[in-house]
């Protein structure tokens, strides 16, 4: 599903990408696994004041915002 959504977004913007379906799926799985493995590290990187008040979902949203801003594709 995530691979499909990602590919649809690339298609919609006609962003060049020739990564094959199997390779793209492997990339999705790898990133997903990396997040699992590094969730604790990410949490620890957040200053304690925010760490203890933000919910898990809000921390995830924060990560999405930071990544989107850093790698914004026009």
């Amino acid at each position, binding site marked *: 599903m995530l691979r499909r959504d990602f*590919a*649809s977004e*690339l298609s919609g913007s*006609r962003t*060049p*990408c*020739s990564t094959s*379906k199997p390779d*793209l799926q492997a990339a999705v799985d790898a990133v997903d696994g990396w997040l699992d493995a590094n969730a604790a590290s990410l949490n620890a990187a957040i200053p304690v004041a925010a760490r203890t008040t933000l919910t898990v979902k809000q921390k995830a949203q924060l990560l999405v915002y930071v990544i989107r801003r850093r790698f914004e594709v026009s």
Partner: protein
Amino acid sequence: MASGDTLAVFTPLSVSFPASNYAAPDLRNNHPTLDFDGSTDEEAYFEGVMPSNYGGGSVVVDIYVGFSSATSGSVRFQTDFERVASGGTDLDADSFTGSMQSAGGTANGTSGILSKVSITHTAGAQMDSVAAGEPFRLLVRRDADGTSGTDDIATDAEVYRVVIREA
């Protein structure tokens, strides 16, 4: 007619759609196109009439396809015929042969340069026995899940023309 002679030409503006999983109409630099998804098999229909001078032999369906993002990889398309003869087919139910013919193609190194996928239908059952002068419907499907062969392009395939010619 002779081998190679054109029998029918369809553009994205002459399309009709199934109720679900249909190719999406789109524009690319003002060229009408039909976007076929890279993950889900999607279809489009083209309605036509077989020319009265059709020789009755095998035909080739040429699908002219570009790609939204891909500059390499393989794509797979399938086609099927539905004869709509006078006094024959009831339009209230689909009547395609159910036996898709298929072929593959490769993406050009430039996504906006078209590739051609050519699918042969032998005369008779593979064409639902469409005869000269008879109305018909052509089904075009991207075999995105690769049932009939390799389709490893994750992003959209864009169909710009479909041409039927004598084999």
